[in-house]
Structure formats: structure tokens, C-alpha cells
């Protein structure tokens, strides 16, 4: 045939390389223009600024950070603040979402209606408004530190946040946590062994209960032998504020609350859809075989529902992570507020800072997708 326009392979290669070249040219054009303009306007470029002293304070730092730390360190602080909100939000919203989803299908009329109302209210109000509500209407008007509410001994609630006692490790800590870890490992092995035995012989073993008992008893035993693992150090009221203790900022609490309650509504609907997709006949067949309701749910309905739940759940998890950037509206020092806000403004290097920030969110999202896809593949229907 040779090279001929009528050869479909030739055409396809021509089109594809054409598109590729166009894309490369466009990217190159924008890069070249930006570079030229930056040079002409005398704006410094490059990533050297990351090593420069930041010089500003951040109210919540999970890693040591002082004003003498670098902008790069400030970036890490912001990143960790974002991650901590995202991880806590994902865990809480998934748990709450499952409860809501199951509750919507409950035969209990009141419970089902409450769950339905929750979903309709939460998912139809913009997240930003909900954040404002939690922050400005609920947490801000709390009394100041001097009149703070002492909910439990050592637990203070004020407009400076939720102050908890700080657990300080004692001599018995190593033994206690060692026992906890040993119990967890033993429980895991036990459950696997019980499952294998059931497959082989059909005999049941109450592995879960035994494992739970192990996890409670072993550490208690260690406590009795090795002494107290930790003691609580209570926060004390200072001139302005509390000193000591673990502090959850109101900005943090508002953000976690808002993200969790909002996303849980969506996850609830996803869970409901997943459960409803499992044919009624499956449940009836299980009942006919004499399985208990809880066993039916655990062994028949949920494994099949999960296949439908996981892909949309992934996108909700991604949404939550990305939505956490609304933190900037309520002064929580997340990545966007600290890095794409303060650092950008102090250095003026908009292109570099925004590029890094976008790369971080992209990486986080891709990593989450990857993990969820791996999980999805694991639970997918395996045809035998």
C-alpha cells in the first residue's frame, strides 16, 4: 500500500501526531510567554525561595515550626494540616454515611424519615455556607477562655477551641502498647485461622469475640504488671488562654464538622443505592437458608453492594480532600491558606506556588484513586 491518504493507519498516525504536536506547541507557547513576561517585568522566578526564612507564625503546626523555619517547612506544615483534616473527615464521613444509608432503608419509619431529611438538608446547602454556620454561628459565640465550659474534668470548650488533657507517657507505656499491638496481631491471625478452619471443616469459631476480648484483656494485664502507661496532664488557665493540654482549634473543628456532615449525606445516598441494587431475592434466599439478618447483611448484601459503592465513594473522598481547601474562608491554616495564601503573598512567586499547590492536590487525588481502585479490584466479582 505504501504511504497513501487512503490508508487508515497512515491517517490515524497523522491525526494523532498532529494533535500531540499541537498540545506541545500550546504548552510551549504559554511557558515561553510567561517566562518572557516575567523577565520583562523583573519578577524573580525559580524555586529557591523555598529555602528562605518564612518569618511568619502559623497557629497549628503538627511538626516543629518556628518563624525562622523556611517557606519549604511552612509548605509541609500546610500540607500536614490539609491531610489531617482530610483523613479525619474521610473516616468520619464514611462511618456516618454508612449509618445514614442503612438508616434510610430501615423499616423503622421515624429513623428512615430522619435519615432522608438529613440527606436532603445537608446535600442541598452549599458547603461554604455550612462551614460559615459551624464556625460563625456555633463555635465563635462560645464563651471566652475565662468562662469556658468544662464539659468533663479537664475538657474545656471555649472560643479558643476544644482543650483536652494531654496524655503523657509513663514507664508502663512500652509494655502497654506492646501488649496492644500483640493483641491486635493475635486477633488478626485468629480470625484468619477461624475462617480457614470454617472453609475446611464447616465448624464455627467465635473468632471476633475472642479477638475483641484479647485486645481488651492483654493491655489491661500489661497495665497491672507494668504500671500506668500514661497519665493525663490537664490544661491550666493562663492569663489569656490555656496552657498545656491538646488543643483542637475552632477553625479545625468547624472544618471537620462541615466536611463530614456534608459528605456523609452523599455517601449515605451511595450506600443506599448500593444496598438497593442487591436483588431482594438474594436476601429472601438467604433467609430461606436460615441465615440471621445480620449474617445476611454481612455475607450476602454488603459484599455485593460494595462493588457498586466503592467507585462513587472514591469520588466523594476526592471531593472531601479538595473541598478542604475551603479552610481559607474560616482561617484554618491548610495548604491553600498557608502556602497559596501567605507564602504566595510574601514571596510574590505566584506561578511557582500555584504550580506546587496544584501538583499536591493532583498527587493526593491520584494516590487516593489508586488505592481505591486497588481495593475495588480486590472486592470485584471474581467469576469462577
Amino acid at each position, binding site marked *: 500500500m505504501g504511504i497513501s491518504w487512503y490508508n487508515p493507519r497512515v491517517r490515524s498516525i497523522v*491525526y494523532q*501526531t498532529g494533535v*500531540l504536536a499541537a498540545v506541545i506547541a500550546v504548552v510551549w507557547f504559554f511557558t515561553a510567554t510567561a517566562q*518572557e513576561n516575567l523577565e520583562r517585568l523583573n519578577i*524573580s522566578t525559580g524555586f529557591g525561595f523555598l529555602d528562605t526564612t518564612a518569618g511568619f507564625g*502559623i497557629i497549628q503546626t503538627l511538626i516543629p515550626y518556628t518563624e525562622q523555619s523556611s517557606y519549604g517547612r511552612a509548605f509541609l506544615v500546610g500540607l500536614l494540616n490539609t491531610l489531617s483534616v482530610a483523613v479525619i473527615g474521610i473516616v468520619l464521613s464514611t462511618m456516618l454515611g454508612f449509618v445514614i444509608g442503612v438508616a434510610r432503608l430501615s423499616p423503622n419509619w421515624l429513623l428512615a424519615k430522619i435519615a432522608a431529611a438529613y440527606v436532603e438538608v445537608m446535600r442541598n446547602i452549599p458547603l461554604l455556607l455550612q462551614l460559615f454556620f459551624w464556625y460563625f454561628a456555633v463555635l465563635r459565640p462560645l464563651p471566652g477562655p475565662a468562662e469556658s465550659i468544662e464539659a468533663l474534668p479537664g475538657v474545656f470548650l471555649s472560643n479558643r477551641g476544644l482543650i483536652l488533657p494531654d496524655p503523657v507517657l509513663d514507664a508502663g507505656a512500652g509494655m502497654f502498647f506492646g501488649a496492644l499491638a500483640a493483641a491486635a496481631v493475635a486477633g488478626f491471625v485468629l480470625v484468619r485461622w477461624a475462617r480457614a478452619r470454617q472453609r475446611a471443616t464447616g465448624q464455627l469459631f467465635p473468632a471476633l469475640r475472642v479477638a475483641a476480648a484479647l485486645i481488651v484483656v492483654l493491655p489491661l494485664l500489661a497495665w497491672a504488671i507494668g504500671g500506668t502507661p500514661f497519665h493525663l496532664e490537664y490544661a491550666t488557665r493562663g492569663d489569656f488562654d490555656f496552657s498545656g493540654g491538646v488543643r483542637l482549634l475552632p477553625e479545625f473543628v468547624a472544618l471537620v464538622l462541615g466536611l463530614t456532615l456534608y459528605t456523609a449525606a452523599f455517601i449515605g445516598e451511595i450506600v443506599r443505592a448500593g444496598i438497593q441494587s442487591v436483588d431482594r431475592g438474594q436476601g429472601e434466599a438467604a433467609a430461606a437458608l436460615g441465615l440471621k439478618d445480620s449474617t445476611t447483611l454481612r455475607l450476602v448484601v454488603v459484599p455485593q453492594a460494595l462493588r457498586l459503592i466503592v467507585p462513587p465513594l472514591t469520588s466523594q473522598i476526592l471531593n472531601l480532600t479538595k473541598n478542604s481547601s475551603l479552610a481559607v474562608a474560616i*482561617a484554618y491554616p491548610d495548604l491553600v491558606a498557608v502556602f497559596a495564601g501567605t507564602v504566595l503573598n510574601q*514571596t510574590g512567586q505566584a506561578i511557582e506556588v500555584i504550580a506546587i499547590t496544584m501538583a499536591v492536590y493532583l498527587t493526593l487525588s491520584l494516590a487516593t484513586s489508586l488505592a481505591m481502585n486497588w481495593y475495588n479490584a480486590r472486592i470485584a466479582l471474581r467469576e469462577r
Partner: protein
Amino acid sequence: MRNPVAALLLGILIGVGGLYFVLPYDAAAVLAGRGTAPATAVETEPGAERTGAGETLRRVMRRGFLQCGVSQGLAGFSSPDERGRWSGIDVDYCRAIAAAIFGDGEKVRFRPLSAKDRFTALQSGEVDILSRNTTWTMSRDTQLGFDFAGVIYYDGQAFMVRKSSGITKAEQLAGATICTQTGTTTELNLADYFRGRGLDYRVLSFEKNDEAISAYDQGRCDGYTTDASGLYAERLKMQHPADNIVLPEIISKEPLGPVIRQGDPQWADIARWTLSALLNAEELGITSENIEEMRESENPLVRRLLGAEGSYGASVGLRPDWVIDIVRAVGNYGEIFERNVGVDTPLGIERGLNALWTDGGVMYAPPIR
């Protein structure tokens, strides 16, 4: 398929060739490595506007009004009233430039910018000038591609606390939570102050100044910090202004001034000499009230300033009577100060450092001659 390489080359050729026709002229020129494109090609995209000597002035005149970046509402400096009319020192400075260019101080549009967005807005050409209580620092002058036109207000950072806290000195703030606005020199000075004294503090940075104020006002923070003039202005917004006091310590130097982009020396001259004209007018006693009589003055300094002698307006691309229009529109520097922040206004700020050098202040403008 016999020869994939040939097909590949053909594809690249078609792709780039297609782009050459699709993209505007200058884009293709950049791609072809032909360097700078003519300014006309990018007229539609303000973000990509090019500057060069005289380009900013030409663009402003073609547009018919000045784009001026101001704050989102800081009483005395730039704030809109209930009918949306802006007033303040920073606003009057922009009106002065508009008057110098168009002979009409109203030919200006104000764009409210947060502290965080202000520099990007100027860099990208969204505003022609940034007149937004911005501190002149070396890094802003050298690394952001900006020039400062001078100092319009000498300020310094201070703290505000509640009277009920019993605090009378800034050093008593050890361990306190301080509210401030992000993206400001304030944030850095605050860190410097406490770090330099080895004191502990917590800083809560808000993107909008109003949010920082309300956080302080509602008791989320023990103190609020910004430039002293700003403290007096913001105190007016509080639920009970009288319950708050400004601490006496001034912890930093904050020379506030208008900012322009580098790369257009003529525009920088207009910005700088408009400011000087305002100060020189005050020094020579020219006010918006006596400007018509002053035109007849025999004083050579006045005659030069008002364009009766020499061609100082023309040297920056303006009309000879540019200063007359400025003073008619907004008055001299002293009038602007007294009208917006002076002792007869709610802010009640004394001239202090901002008095003319002849009156014990540091306001000293280079002569127009």
C-alpha cells in the same frame, strides 16, 4: 504502513502549521522565536498587556479612565460610602492622577483588592496603579517587579486590645492570640516582635481584614494588630469602639505608598510627581479654594508648579495645567489628609510624622523645576 517516520513528520507539520493560522499573530511569532510581538495583538487580554515607555499612559487614555487598586474598605484610606462613592487618602491620590491625565478626577474606577490579591492584580495589569495602604519594603520593590512612587502616609504597626483585659503595654501580650490579615507585612512584624523578645504568641490570620476584626471583636483573639492608622479606622467598626484601646508601642516602620509596575518609566514619573505636586502645593499654600487666585501669582515656584512657566507637564506626557486640575479635584496633600483622617474626622489622627518638613514632620517632596 511502510514508513511511519514520514507520517510522523507530516503530522507534526500539520499540527504546528494549523496552530500558526489558528493562534493570533504574536503567538505564532513567539513560537517561531521571533521575539516580542506588537502590543496591538494582545489588546483584548489585559492579563498579557505589554508595557514600555509611555504604554501605560496611552492605554489609560485610550480606555478613558484609570483603573486603581484600593482596599476592600479601610476608613480614611479607601472605603465606599452607602451610595458606593469611594473616599480616603488612597482614593484621592488616584483621583489626583485621573485629574492630571484627563483633567477630571472622576475618570477613575476603583477595584477593591484583598491584601493577598493586590500584587497579582498589579502584576497582571488588572489595575494601572495600586493605591492600597501598601508598605514600601525592599523585597516588594526588588522581587515583585514593582516600583514605589513615594510615601503618602508614614505609618507604624500597633496593637489593639480590650480595655477589660487590663493590658497597657504590648509586652504583656505574651501568650495571647492575635488576629491579623494574611499576606501583610503586619504578619511578619508581629512574628519579629514576639520572636525578638522571646515571647510566646498565637497568630490567627484571616484573608479579609473584616473577618480579622470581627474575630477579635467576638473574642476569638485577645488582640488585633495592623498599622496604627488602620487600628483607629477599624475601631469604628466595632460593636463598642470605646471598649478597645490602642497600645502605645509602635513596633514597625510602615511607609505606605502607591505602587506601579516596573518597565514604564513615564508612568512611574507620573505617579511620583503627582504625589510631589500634592505636597509641593501644600508647601506653597495652594489649596482648592485659592487655586484661581494662585494662577495669577508672581512667585516663580508657584508659576512653575501651575504650568505658567516651563513645560513640566509635557515632560511626563501630560498637559501644562495638570497640577491645577489635581488641586481643583482633590486639593493639596494637607487638605486630603484633614478631609479623610484628620482631627475633625471620626479617626481624629494628628499630622505627626505626616506633617510637612517645615512643620516638624518628614513629608518632603522634591521640587518641581
